[in-house]
């Protein structure tokens, strides 16, 4: 058994805190024994808020999705599963729009998640080193994350605008005469959206990784060194396995956040070109809250939610299997 395996197996054996010994805690006497409903009273505030803002709307949404539901019309006929059927009828307008927006959402996830997993990890490894100004750089890389999406959108709009933007202005000075359509043509729109999102949110993932890195036991690295592991081997065999729960968390959150992307497209490209960058959330908001076709929008939301649940479950399964 190598040194590292020995340490790891000792850790597994001992687990966390020592097991409580019998008789350590006094048995509560009857006047202090909690009444059976006490836990429920403590849970009540959360249940109330959760019920009002999550559970009831979710059930109401399901109910709405079975109707041709316009908020402001008195008559909302029951249509059964028609809204769902429409979304799977290839020549229906809504189906085209919906699957086009799902494609945009999927593409954004596929393009942004790997970058948002890898770059922040590299950054966290760098920021975990000891060097002068470390705190300053940690703050600098986290800074964009505190900006709201509207600020980020406006800022990059000024920078990326094809005809009057700063970036094309500088490119022209460098001799690029044909302006780059950053916000109006593929593939540039995806470069812009993914780039802006990475710049904006990588700080958050870095901080999460950093917290994970600081929890890795130094002894494991020492043991690896004793075994003659190179820096790369230490990274692969110590850092990555130790970070697995953190990676799972970051991956799940990043996939969900990317699948719910709205502001960047809305503010930067407006869905251009040809609704190529109109994400599912953008379409749902447009159909439900601007055209007031709420039944249809609710049906779309459910399909999207279902898909995200499946993706998240797969994430967990995949990473947990690897662990075992």
């Amino acid at each position: 058994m190598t040194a590292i395996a020995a340490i790891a197996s000792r850790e597994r054996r001992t687990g966390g805190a020592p097991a409580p010994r019998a008789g350590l805690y006094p048995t509560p006497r009857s006047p202090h024994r909690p009444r059976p409903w006490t836990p429920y009273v403590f849970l009540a505030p959360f249940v109330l808020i959760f019920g009002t803002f999550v559970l009831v709307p979710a059930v109401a949404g399901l109910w709405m999705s079975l109707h041709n539901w316009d908020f402001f019309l008195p008559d909302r006929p029951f249509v059964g599963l028609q809204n769902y059927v429409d979304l799977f009828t290839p020549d229906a307008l809504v189906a085209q729009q919906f699957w086009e927006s799902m494609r945009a959402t999927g593409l954004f996830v596929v393009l942004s998640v790997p970058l948002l997993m890898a770059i922040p990890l590299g950054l966290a490894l760098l920021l975990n080193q000891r060097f002068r100004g470390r705190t300053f750089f940690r703050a600098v890389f986290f800074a964009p994350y505190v900006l709201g999406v509207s600020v980020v959108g406006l800022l990059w709009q000024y920078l990326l605008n094809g005809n009057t933007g700063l970036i094309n202005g500088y490119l022209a000075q460098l001799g690029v005469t044909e302006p780059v359509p950053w916000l109006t043509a593929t593939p540039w729109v995806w470069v812009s959206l993914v780039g802006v999102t990475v710049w904006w949110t990588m700080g958050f993932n870095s901080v999460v990784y950093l917290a994970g890195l600081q929890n890795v036991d130094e002894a494991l690295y020492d043991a690896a060194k004793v075994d003659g592991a190179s820096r790369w081997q230490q990274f692969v065999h110590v850092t990555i396995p130790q970070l697995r729960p953190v990676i799972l968390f970051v991956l799940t959150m990043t996939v969900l956040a990317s699948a719910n992307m709205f502001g960047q497209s809305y503010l930067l490209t407006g869905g251009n070109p040809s609704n190529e960058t109109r994400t599912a959330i953008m379409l749902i908001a447009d159909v439900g809250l601007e055209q007031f076709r709420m039944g249809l929008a609710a049906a779309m939301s459910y399909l999207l939610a279902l898909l995200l649940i499946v993706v998240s479950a797969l994430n967990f399964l995949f990473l947990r299997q690897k662990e075992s």
Partner: protein
Amino acid sequence: METSTFTRRAVLRAIGAAGLAGVAAAVTGCAPTIGTAALPRIPAAYDGPPVRLKFWNGLTGGDGPVMRELLAEFTREHPNVRIDMYALPWPDFYQKFPAAVTSGLAPDFALMHNFQVATNAARKVIMPVDEILQTVGLREEDYLPVVWGSGVYRDQRWSLPLDMWPDSLFYNRRVLERAGLDPDAPPADRAAYEHALDALASSGVRGHWLPAVDPQGVGRGFDSLLWQFGGEHYSGDGRAATFAEQPGVDALAWQQSLIRTGWSPRDVSGSDASMAFKNDQNAFLWGGPGAFINDLGSVEGLDWDVAPLPRIGTEQAAFSGSHQFVVARQPRFDADRLAAVVTFLGWILANSTGWASAGPVPARLPVLDSPELAQMTAQSHVAGGVEHIRFYPLVPGIAEVQTSILYPAIGDALLSLGDPRAALETATTQASFLLQENAEKYGRA
């Protein structure tokens, strides 16, 4: 019947709030309980106890202060009526106004676009106003037929037109002069327009920055051109789209030719075009007086003027909108408040020259022809084109068909420079689908 309504309402009340699966913003909701309120009898002018009215609109730009000044002036003349104005961006307004009415929190009156009146009438969130026409002094002969007809839906009048904002040709005089063109004679037809663009190109200026990105700037230019080529957007009953017929194709092909010839850069947004105009890099802007008169007027040293749109097709035509006053439906009407509203509407429609300083020109022809208006140079030049204005048809839901299907299709065609007929035909199929759905939805209402 009664029972089923009650059951649904009971269920809704029980669930208390409704939302879009927690994905979109949660929206609280009860069944709309729009009663069958009718307007009470209204005295000619209000002289009762002091009242404070609520007035909602989307005047969030330079037009807001102008309206507030008029409200203050009205209150000086009618001290017992105070009007609190709430301005929110138009898209928000069209979401929140129906919501406010259905939840019993309606303002007393509001301003909305002519192409939204039929939608809101079908939603029953505004009141028919036929009964107050006489009191506010609205007469058919004082309006252009298209304007007079614009508030009438299902044989009832729902709105009172305040103004008109025809798309017009804003031109940069200095840029024209530098290209050797006469700044006092802006081009009025296709030959002159294309000649001017050619001359401008020779002087190194792309003369018509054509927006291809923001939907509104793109779409309204197309609308004007389609009408100029003799087309119509929709069939008479509003159930089918007809913009892919030859006039639409010609209109879109001409727009694309501006980019192909190099008279316009590619990938232009509305703000690019006006920024270039203000920096003497662009000669022509097509747009409404509300958007441009005060905006361009505030740029120091800019030498500009405005004229009716040139005739590119076979006839003269220009897209126009109109702000119209509507009376919001209330669970119960208060005769005093209503009388105060009517007094204000009568006053402002008669005093709409004051509003003209916001940019749009008065809808009432005698006011339009008044010497006061003639003194406003830009507005009077815009007024020169009003006889050719066109409005969208009075079909509920028409604005969303335009903005969610037609305008993006035009934008795409201008970005990709693809086949105009194919682009419009795809949009027609999509639009007809939505029109049909709207016809059924609002037909039931």
